[in-house]
């Protein structure tokens, strides 16, 4: 077991922080705060840059500290999933709170993105 290593931690508009980490060889993006129309552009830019890194294959979006998600944020997730899919990689979601999970479900995202209850189960699924 390698320890989670914090690589980059960026805060956008005081409302959203994103921390890129790598655990057991798998990249994780931990989102904290609010992902809405005000922060989605920065989040999209962040994830686009990350996907341009050749080291990054599958990606876990850790939502455990994401308090709020609107359709602007869903758009960011969908774009990330499309980019990954075009390279035969996948994006999975981990640990959404109840409100965020409800938004994902009623938007039909549970049929295109795997959602895991926690980071550990997402990691073990991608490792296998």
């Amino acid at each position, binding site marked *: 077991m390698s320890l989670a290593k914090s690589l980059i931690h960026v805060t956008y*508009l005081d*409302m959203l922080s994103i921390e890129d980490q790598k655990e057991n060889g798998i990249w994780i993006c931990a989102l904290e705060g*609010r992902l*809405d*129309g*005000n922060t989605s552009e920065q989040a999209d830019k962040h994830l686009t840059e990350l996907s341009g890194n050749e080291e990054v294959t599958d990606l876990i979006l850790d939502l455990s500290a994401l308090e*709020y998600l*609107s*359709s*602007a944020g*869903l*758009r960011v997730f*969908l*774009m990330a*999933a*499309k980019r990954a*899919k*075009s390279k035969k990689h996948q994006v999975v979601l981990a640990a959404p709170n109840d*409100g965020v999970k409800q*938004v994902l479900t*009623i*938007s*039909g995202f549970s*049929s*295109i*993105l795997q959602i895991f209850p926690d980071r550990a189960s997402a990691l073990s699924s991608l490792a296998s």
Partner: protein
Amino acid sequence: MQQDFGNSLAELASLAKALEDFGQRENLPPAVIGPLNLALDELFTNIVQHGYPPGKEGRIFLQLRKNENSVEALLQDQAPAYNPFEAPDPDLESPIESRPIGGLGVHLVKELMDHWEYRRDSDQNTIILRKNLG
């Protein structure tokens, strides 16, 4: 409660704060305030991005009222007439590569609210939302 907001996405934080304060004052559970915040956020974002012409200043008015069995929100702007509820339903089933981007905001409003309506009156777009209590 009533409040005027500027025509800017940075105001989404003020909108969330207004909802939180209203919820505390009226003793409303997160299961009511959360969906109401999201529904208003989606409509507010639409007005900022597609309602007022780019660069034009405008105001967005919000009024919240607690009734006996529901919470009612009224949202008004002076942008050109537009009924968001006439937008086509989004595609919720295509696979990732062909899933269209967008159209989910109004879908969320319809799913989360118990009542929604649009009116154009005295040169204003008026939206009324209702979320039932309990």
